[in-house]
């Protein structure tokens, strides 16, 4: 792979590099503005070596990975001291772009795994950045996707992939250019057991060559190791203490044996077999001997649940009892959130009934649900009085943070805050969506403690999870599988039934038997392209240029007649060139028509001139009518033209064509395409945020979930903005780690400029000229 790194600008500055060493660090220390950090670390990692990086939350595992990838200080403010070389490159000075020549990176959120709208484009990006000849790119992209286990998904839109598929696509993009170092930052945090196993298989496939070094941060050690137990973990472990200093570095077994107790004390997850050896029970107090009262607080009877017309779950029967901590398990996409939506009364059941008071719901991402500027305000917003709020602040351990913005809290603190705010609403049933995800042992113990306390205080508590330890801590567990809800049953019953565990997504399904998540029907880009008519095959830059020229012509015209002619001709063009039926064409123009009629009216009424009907109570002028008609038609013509171009030019071809034919710099073109991918994801995020905000409102007099008012919608908009700015950070990191810079690059699938484009231009010019001359 050394031929590949030959194009890298920063390399070979140090002659003393030892052969075979991928990472060399001497006194490497990172200090962040908060005063946190990691190091000092002196050590090395060899080619082909697999290393587990272990440590409690806040010990700086992610910070170290980001420093190795060149993100500090280039992307994130921080002081880095000491000496670091990764594949001969200095990430501190070179930044993410230079380091991308030797490093592949995969983070925890599947949404970030793919940053362009189409999967194959995203995987091709690192190759294009390294000037791989275009004829080779297709084959290598396909091979990378096959090795990641998703060979058939190359031409799919990223928006249609499941979480596990997105993570594997992200893995393919990280590996396609054969990096010397693969950095994995909790790559499985949001996946079910099957997804974990698939990502792991992809990583193993990459490791088989013996060339790439792998550094893994992972909370879910048992899921990652699979059935091999500790032997399935990377053979070497570097352990950090809570302050980010290196506690131990050596063979995984020995490190865990010697330091397991200290690591667990600090709040770190350990493999199950080790935990059992260390004793001391599960992370939180086990299930109490719950006495189930007669009348449940909340009951679902024979209900069908799901969006209108598509039942996700059928025949659901579920009682929620006071004093009970109930776990709900199931694969990603099985319908856990659908159930919570019904229990919280956000969604009406399609059939059957949900009886009892609406439940409070804490969302998986606390940030989606924050409604106030401060931690204190967040708790007060639940309607509790000052005494209760202060008591809750103390209980959550957030007294010192009372005036801080909720968004500045750590993951564990945010989770506590959102649970605390939900508890204060005094609703009899509390729902928590994945309350333990992404937390270390200590933080998960705190969260479970809060939930248990609520149950002991006489509330009903329901939590979804894909974590066996959370299941063990529950009083009962319900399994969602194949559109049905099974149980509730005692946790032991589920834990002793491997077949049921597999159906619940808690145990990996062997590859052969695995059912792929069915592709969602929306957005199959390649077939759609063909059905969009002949104009969709024309060069998008040419289309945009034609529309610009047409707009300029229209603005120069003040006579309604030629504009009318142009409008009729353009409508015909839209029907023939874009395969738009007359009805759809009219419907799409409705907003323009409303606007155009407004323009006409204002001009008719407000322009001085000759009055043909002076007796009317309002002044109507001839000049106003003529010019108004022209201006209205102008709006219609340009609007219709914009409609045609928007329909004919798909985003990828437009950006690639602007890059090729309009000299749009590559960084801007791909940043815009990544923006398009984000845009596709925003409706989903907006729905989550508005739902999360609605459940925090006081119920209406009828006990239903209230609607959001304008002020609250603005709050939601702000949440979306915060979320998107965070996304911007991750998108730019992902793009740069795919080598996107200003340097030379190749283009895998260029957009052609053909004779047909010239003919189209000529044809449009002739038609417009004819119209102008005729009238």
């Amino acid at each position: 792979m050394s031929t590949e790194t030959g194009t890298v600008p920063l390399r070979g500055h140090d002659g003393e590099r030892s052969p075979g060493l991928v990472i060399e660090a001497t006194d490497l220390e990172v200090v962040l503005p908060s005063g946190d950090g990691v190091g000092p670390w002196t050590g090395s990692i060899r080619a082909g070596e697999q290393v587990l990086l272990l440590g409690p939350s806040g010990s700086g595992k992610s910070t170290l990975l980001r420093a190795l990838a060149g993100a500090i200080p280039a992307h994130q403010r921080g002081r880095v001291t000491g000496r670091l070389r990764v594949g001969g490159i200095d990430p501190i000075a070179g930044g993410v772009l230079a380091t991308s020549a030797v490093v592949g990176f995969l983070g925890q959120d599947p949404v970030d795994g793919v940053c362009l709208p189409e999967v194959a484009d995203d995987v091709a990006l690192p190759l294009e950045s390294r000037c791989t000849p275009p004829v080779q790119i297709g084959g290598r992209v396909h091979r990378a996707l096959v090795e990641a286990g998703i060979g058939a998904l190359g031409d799919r839109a990223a928006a249609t992939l499941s979480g596990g598929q997105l993570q594997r696509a992200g893995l393919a993009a990280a590996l396609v250019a054969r990096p010397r170092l693969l950095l994995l930052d909790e790559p499985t945090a949001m996946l079910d057991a099957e997804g974990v196993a698939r990502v792991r298989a992809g990583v193993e496939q990459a490791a088989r060559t013996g060339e790439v070094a792998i550094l893994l941060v992972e909370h879910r050690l048992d899921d990652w190791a699979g059935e091999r137990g500790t032997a399935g973990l990377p053979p070497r472990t570097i352990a950090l203490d809570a302050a980010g200093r290196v506690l131990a570095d050596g063979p995984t077994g020995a490190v865990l044996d010697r330091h397991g107790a200290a690591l667990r004390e600090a709040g770190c997850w350990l493999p199950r077999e080790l935990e059992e050896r260390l004793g001391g029970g599960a992370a939180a107090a086990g299930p109490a001997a719950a006495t189930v009262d007669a009348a449940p607080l909340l009951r679902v009877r024979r209900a069908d649940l799901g969006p209108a017309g598509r039942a996700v779950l059928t025949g659901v029967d579920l009682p929620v009892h006071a004093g009970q901590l109930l776990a709900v398990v199931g694969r990603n996409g099985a319908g856990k959130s659908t159930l919570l939506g019904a229990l919280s009364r956000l969604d009406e059941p399609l059939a059957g009934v949900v009886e009892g008071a609406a439940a409070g719901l804490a969302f998986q991402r606390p940030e989606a649900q924050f409604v106030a500027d401060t931690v204190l305000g967040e708790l007060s917003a639940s309607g509790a009085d000052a005494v209760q709020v202060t008591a809750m602040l103390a209980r959550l351990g957030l007294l010192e943070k009372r005036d801080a913005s909720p968004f500045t809290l750590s993951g564990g603190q945010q989770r506590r805050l959102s649970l605390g705010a939900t508890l204060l609403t005094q609703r009899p049933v509390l729902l928590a969506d994945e309350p333990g995800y992404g937390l270390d042992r200590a933080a998960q113990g705190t969260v479970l403690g809060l939930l248990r306390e609520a149950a002991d205080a006489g509330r009903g508590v329901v939590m979804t999870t894909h974590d066996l330890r959370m299941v063990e801590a529950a009083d009962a567990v319900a399994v969602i599988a194949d559109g049905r809800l099974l149980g509730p049953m005692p946790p032991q019953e589920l834990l002793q039934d491997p077949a049921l565990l597999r159906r619940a997504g808690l145990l990996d399904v062997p590859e052969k038997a695995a059912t792929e998540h069915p592709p969602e029907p929306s957005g199959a880009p390649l077939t759609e392209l063909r059905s969009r008519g002949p104009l969709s095959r024309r060069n998008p830059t040419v289309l945009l240029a034609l529309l610009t020229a047409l707009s300029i012509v229209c603005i120069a015209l003040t006579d309604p007649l030629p504009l009318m002619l142009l409008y009729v001709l353009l409508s015909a063009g839209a029907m023939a060139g874009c395969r738009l039926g007359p009805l759809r064409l009219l419907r799409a123009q409705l907003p323009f028509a409303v606007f155009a009629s407004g323009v006409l009216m204002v001009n008719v009424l407000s322009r001085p001139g000759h009055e043909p009907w002076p007796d009317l109570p309002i002044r109507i002028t001839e000049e106003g009518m003529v010019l108004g008609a022209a201006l209205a038609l102008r709006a219609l013509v340009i609007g219709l033209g914009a409609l045609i171009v928007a329909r004919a030019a798909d985003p990828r071809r437009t950006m690639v064509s602007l890059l090729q034919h309009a000299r749009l710099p590559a960084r801007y073109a791909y940043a815009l395409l990544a923006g398009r991918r984000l845009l596709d994801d925003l409706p989903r995020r907006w729905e989550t945020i508005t739902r999360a905000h609605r459940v925090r409102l006081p119920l209406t007099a009828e006990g239903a979930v209230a609607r959001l008012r304008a002020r609250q919608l603005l709050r939601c908009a702000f949440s979306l903005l915060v979320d998107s700015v965070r996304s911007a950070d991750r998108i730019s990191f992902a793009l740069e780690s795919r080598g996107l810079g200003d340097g030379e690059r190749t283009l895998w699938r260029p957009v052609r400029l053909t004779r047909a484009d010239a003919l189209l231009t000529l044809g449009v010019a002739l038609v417009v000229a004819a119209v102008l001359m005729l009238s």
Partner: protein
Amino acid sequence: MTPAQRSAQTPAQTVPTARRSRLTLREIVLVVVLGVVFGFLYWVFVQAWNGLAIAMGPAGDLAQHVLFGSWLLVGPIALAILRRPGVGILAEMLAAIIEVVFLGSPVGPLLVLAAALQGIGSELPFALTRYRRFGWGVFAASGALGAGLVFFWTAYRMGWYGQDLLALRLGVQVLSGIVLGGLAAKVIVRALARTGVLENFAIGAATDSGDGIPERRVH
């Protein structure tokens, strides 16, 4: 001395504050993302707006001036976060490209020209302070100029000259620019800065006292 050697001897400092000519990819992506989010939010809120415009009949054409300022937001927000010359104009133009190419704006590609004018107007007051002052007055001036400069182009494009309403249109639009396109931007930037998400942009470095990064770890 090569960059590699230099960093081996002296601690790597925070994001360089010296004027760099090129924008970093992070800065470009942030500007794009702002354009995308505001484009999406306009679309969400315009659903309600369209209904209102229909109900208002002929006044709908006039009412566009009342809300005009909100279209300006991206420019001053990007400027206040990134504090770099040209960012305000770029932000408006990229937002316009996003609207034309991804959302299908009825104005067509000439929107990019209007956006450039808006951007120039919005950016001018910040440029006059050499991107050092971000008080209420600068934001208000930014909104007023952003709305005012583009008005004359739109007036030509839409044939407002010769209507009785020209002065009314201009007045309402500038007022809207000041409130919705200037002061509101400052409110949004302040709220965003409080959440900590801007910490790694120029605004984050500027609001820290001194260097902001401790010599040694404190935890």
